[in-house]
């Protein structure tokens, strides 16, 4: 059986990849995929905690996280589509309405 | 000639090894059957309309005089497909074009493993299930894995660099996801009624004809039946490959063995859904009015020493000659195998329904298809769940 640290390390790696995606990818859809990666890293921690702590609350949490992720993806991608319609691009380099 | 009985015994003592071998055998058989399904079905799909339309249909291919009503036509087609030249259209995404059919076939083969083809049987003191995959989540596994089947279609259409392929694949996948929800909902009343997600337990719960899913939850069956057609993109819901509009749907650009693979996937999924329908609504491997235990007793009492005779020919069957099947310990195996046959008969009925419906009903329009799924099946499915829950609750907890 793998130790709980190995799960945590794996989760860290996944989360790190997600952060890299958010920070350095210009495509909004890829940014959102990176967010999904991060959510999954957190889920992994939850499930491994379930195993370590000996109760299933963590799995219920994962369930809720997935629910939230589904809603997030639905609304987020709707916004991506709306942005694309409005500005003709979803490249973050060109979406700078908030520029000071 | 020494057969090392001790070695055999040592092997039989290792449960892991026995189960592994059993899994391998089971999978080999299931795979063999799955491979056989498309040729046979293609033959049926050619002969059946011919029959309906008073034509002859393919009947020439054969060895010498042995024509088998054209059955070998399919085999010839398969060989032809494999031997064809591979063409990748210009501008296509080469990698995805290549692997899209693989994406399709993996879920199909995986869900084929989750159907309980027969009851568990006892052999060498082990309980061996006749489904290959037995997981805690029961048929949620089937739903989960089959939902991955969309990628094969979507990516195939997208990678072909052909607008009709893409449109066909989007239509097909939108249709599949739309009908996945009523499909899932139609099975919830079954869980409510039989109280388990395990397909084999559900079949055991249908020991009597009056306990069959179609009797206890007829509306579920109707929804499931419609969804079966929509999920496989079959007529009357074959919008994705409506020849007049979209050339041939998402697999327009596919040829050769990859096309064979896509065909294999489609027919395997049809077969699995037929098996699932029989399992959930038609008692699976149960024979109507003959409970499994009765069947086992019946078989157990028989004395058919065919195998011992054969073994005797090579010199080690003598001790078994006088034993009944029960005493030899194979009666549950034989009963389960009979169950497998029963299930295949029932599934065959549904396969026939696929063909029959295809040549009977006209094609839906896409908006009709979608509104049937979302505006009729979904509310009806929800109401069905609700009503079933209330009825089960009233009957069970006071």
């Amino acid at each position, binding site marked *: 059986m793998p130790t709980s640290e190995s799960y945590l390390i794996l989760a860290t790696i996944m989360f790190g990849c997600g952060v890299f995606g958010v920070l350095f990818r210009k495509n909004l859809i890829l940014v959102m995929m990176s967010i999904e990666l991060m959510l999954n890293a957190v889920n992994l921690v939850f499930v491994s905690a379930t195993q370590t702590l000996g109760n299933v609350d963590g799995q219920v949490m994962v*369930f809720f996280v*997935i629910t939230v992720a589904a*809603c997030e*993806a639905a609304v987020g*991608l*709707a916004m991506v589509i709306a942005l694309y319609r409005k500005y003709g691009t979803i490249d973050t380099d060109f979406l700078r309405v908030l520029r000071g | 000639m020494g057969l090392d009985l001790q070695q055999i015994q040592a092997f039989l003592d290792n449960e892991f090894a026995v*189960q*592994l071998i059993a899994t*391998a055998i089971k*999978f080999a058989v299931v*795979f063999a059957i799955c491979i056989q399904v498309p040729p046979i079905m293609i033959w049926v799909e050619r002969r059946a309309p011919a029959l309906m339309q008073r034509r002859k249909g393919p009947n020439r291919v054969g060895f010498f005089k042995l024509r088998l009503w054209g059955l070998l036509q399919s085999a010839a087609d398969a060989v032809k497909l*494999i*031997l*064809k*030249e*591979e*063409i990748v*259209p*210009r*501008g*296509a995404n080469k990698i995805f074009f*290549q*692997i899209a*059919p*693989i994406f399709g*076939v*993996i879920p199909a*083969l*995986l869900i084929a*493993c989750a159907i309980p083809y027969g009851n568990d049987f006892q052999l060498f003191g082990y309980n061996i299930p006749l489904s*290959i*995959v037995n997981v805690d989540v029961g048929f949620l596994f089937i739903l989960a894995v089959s939902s991955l089947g969309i990628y094969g279609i979507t990516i195939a259409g997208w990678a072909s*660099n052909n*607008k*009709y*392929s893409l*449109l066909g694949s*989007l239509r097909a996948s*939108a249709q599949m*996801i*739309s009908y*996945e*929800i009523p499909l*899932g*909902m139609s099975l919830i009343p079954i869980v409510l009624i039989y*109280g*388990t*997600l395990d397909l084999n337990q559900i079949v055991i719960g249908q020991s009597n004809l009056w306990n069959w899913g179609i009797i206890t939850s007829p509306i579920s069956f109707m929804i499931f039946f419609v969804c079966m057609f929509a999920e496989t993109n079959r007529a009357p819901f074959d919008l994705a490959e409506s020849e007049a509009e979209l*050339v041939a749907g998402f697999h327009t*650009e596919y040829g050769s*063995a990859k096309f064979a*693979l896509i065909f294999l996937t489609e027919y395997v999924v049809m077969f699995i859904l037929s098996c699932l329908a029989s399992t959930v609504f038609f008692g699976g491997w149960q024979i109507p009015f003959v409970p499994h235990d009765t069947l086992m007793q019946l078989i157990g009492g028989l004395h058919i020493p065919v195998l011992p005779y054969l073994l005797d020919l090579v010199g080690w069957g003598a001790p078994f000659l006088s034993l009944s099947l029960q005493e030899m310990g194979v009666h549950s195996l034989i009963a389960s195998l009979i169950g497998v046959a029963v299930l295949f008969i029932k599934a065959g009925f549904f396969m026939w329904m696929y063909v029959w419906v295809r040549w009977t009903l006209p094609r839906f329009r896409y*908006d009709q298809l*979608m*509104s049937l799924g979302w505006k009729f099946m*979904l509310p009806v499915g929800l109401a069905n*769940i609700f009503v079933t*829950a209330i009825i*089960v*609750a009233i009957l069970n907890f006071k």
Partner: protein
Amino acid sequence: MNPYLPVLIVLVFAIIFGCIMSGLSHFIGPRKRTLSPVKDEPYECGVPMVGERDKMSVKFYLTAILFILFDIETIFLYLWATTFRELGWFGIVEVTIFLVILVAGYVYVVKRGALEWD
């Protein structure tokens, strides 16, 4: 034996099988390099290619959104169905509230015409 071991075995087998099938014609099939420029053009019933690849209707996307959300709902219902007998009427009430809220959303979706394909 872990119940997922067969899954793994089948998975590996299916991948190998798929690759073999996919590669089969690559190795067995004939390789004629005809020079005709129309041979590997996307097939449109034999007539020359027309137009660009269009953008797809947003309807497909809306369908996918609704699919996700109702899929989640179905999962919730599956969980309820497995615990149905222990939860009893309490569970029915819970799920009724849950469903009433979602049916409100469904009604909105229908009224808003998000399911119309025109």
